[in-house]
């Protein structure tokens, strides 16, 4: 029999973005389970990469991007890892080496003109080997009234990406916040220091391996554990 912990991938689906496995519908492992839902093994799959044609204005923007990348001598398939389209929103997964060039093109090319960067923040996927930390950028084009997302992945041990403060100065505090909460080092940032936590705080709080840090709440004759240690649905 096949290993129950490895999800079975149907034929024809090449790349599935699996970030983890959900074991059991209920969080609790103690107590009886007559429903069988407690034994469910469910892969957590993020939306799959999209294939051309994307539909709507996504094609127009992607064509512009590819032309601009080629015009600047950047390899298109190397810069853009994949494109994900989910619920009418497009996400470009960009390799970190080409991030600054990519965002400069987003800002300067007349067909793109994403003048406003809405900041960067991080997401930590401990289940995705080699790509644990993601930095997510959102851009808004006031001229063309469009929104785009750019995502950069990096492994946990080597969480260094170039800073785009020189291109979008608004990312100054956002990058500091992402460093503070995730430990992603932005190379080239003028002053990458903690911004939310006290300056000497150890650890990066919003990572998944950092505990929530609550304390049990005392009542007369009992305590209730903090939210991350209670029995809960998965």
């Amino acid at each position, binding site marked *: 029999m096949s290993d129950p912990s490895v999800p079975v991938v149907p034929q024809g689906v090449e790349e599935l973005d699996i970030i983890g496995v959900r074991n059991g519908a209920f969080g609790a492992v103690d107590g009886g389970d007559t429903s069988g839902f407690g034994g469910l093994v469910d892969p957590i799959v993020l939306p799959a990469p999209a294939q051309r044609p994307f539909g709507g204005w996504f094609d127009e923007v992607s064509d512009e991007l590819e032309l601009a990348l080629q015009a600047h001598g950047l390899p298109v398939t190397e810069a853009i890892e994949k494109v994900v389209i989910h619920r009418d929103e497009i996400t470009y997964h960009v390799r970190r080496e080409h991030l600054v060039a990519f965002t400069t093109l987003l800002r300067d090319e007349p067909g793109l003109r994403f003048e406003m960067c809405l900041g960067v923040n991080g997401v930590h996927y401990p289940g995705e080997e080699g790509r644990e930390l993601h930095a997510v950028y959102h851009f808004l084009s006031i001229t063309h009234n469009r929104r785009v997302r750019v995502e950069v992945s990096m492994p946990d041990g080597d969480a260094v990406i170039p800073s785009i403060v020189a291109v979008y100065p608004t990312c100054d505090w956002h990058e500091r916040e992402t460093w503070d909460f995730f430990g992603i080092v932005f190379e080239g940032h003028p002053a990458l220091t903690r911004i939310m936590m006290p300056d000497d705080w150890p650890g990066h709080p919003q990572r998944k391996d950092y*505990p929530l840090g609550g*304390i049990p*709440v005392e009542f007369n*004759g*009992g305590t209730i554990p*903090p939210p991350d240690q209670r029995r809960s649905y998965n």
Partner: protein
Amino acid sequence: MGLEEALPSGVLLTTVEKFAGYARKGSLWPATFGLACCAIEMMAAGGPRFDIARYGMEVFRASPRQADLMIVAGRVSQKMAPVLRQIYDQMPNPKWVISMGVCASSGGMFNNYAIVQGVDHVVPVDIYLPGCPPRPEMLFDAILKLHDKIQDTKIGAHRRDEVVELEAAALMAPTTLELKGLMR
């Protein structure tokens, strides 16, 4: 201290206590320590509808050196806790603390790494006021209870005796976990 500290216990001291309590509660000046949502309700309490000036408290002193009462209104983060303590230390005696809102009283809904689970970890609190945020009327209820407390404050020899009594009682009291009955 003043003359009142040197008075022997007795009827005279009791009269002085009543007078001092009345004077102290009559114009209790709060220090501005509004942090978050509760601060807005505190400001609304200072507004014309729920007038805090009728208690003589509309002058929220910016400088803690001129304030009697610190209303800790809002969630106290780990970064803010040393600041809170410093402001409390800068207030001259006699001083009182109301912890306004559940976040100040016990950490509230934020049971996590960033919030101090109750400002009584940092400063001694006289009145705990629950609510998220408490209405201005609830803040007044807390202030009036504090006024009663201030009115009954003992001075001098009476105070010394009271402290000894309270400490003995606190040492004998059961912990929250040992209490029985309703869960609150």
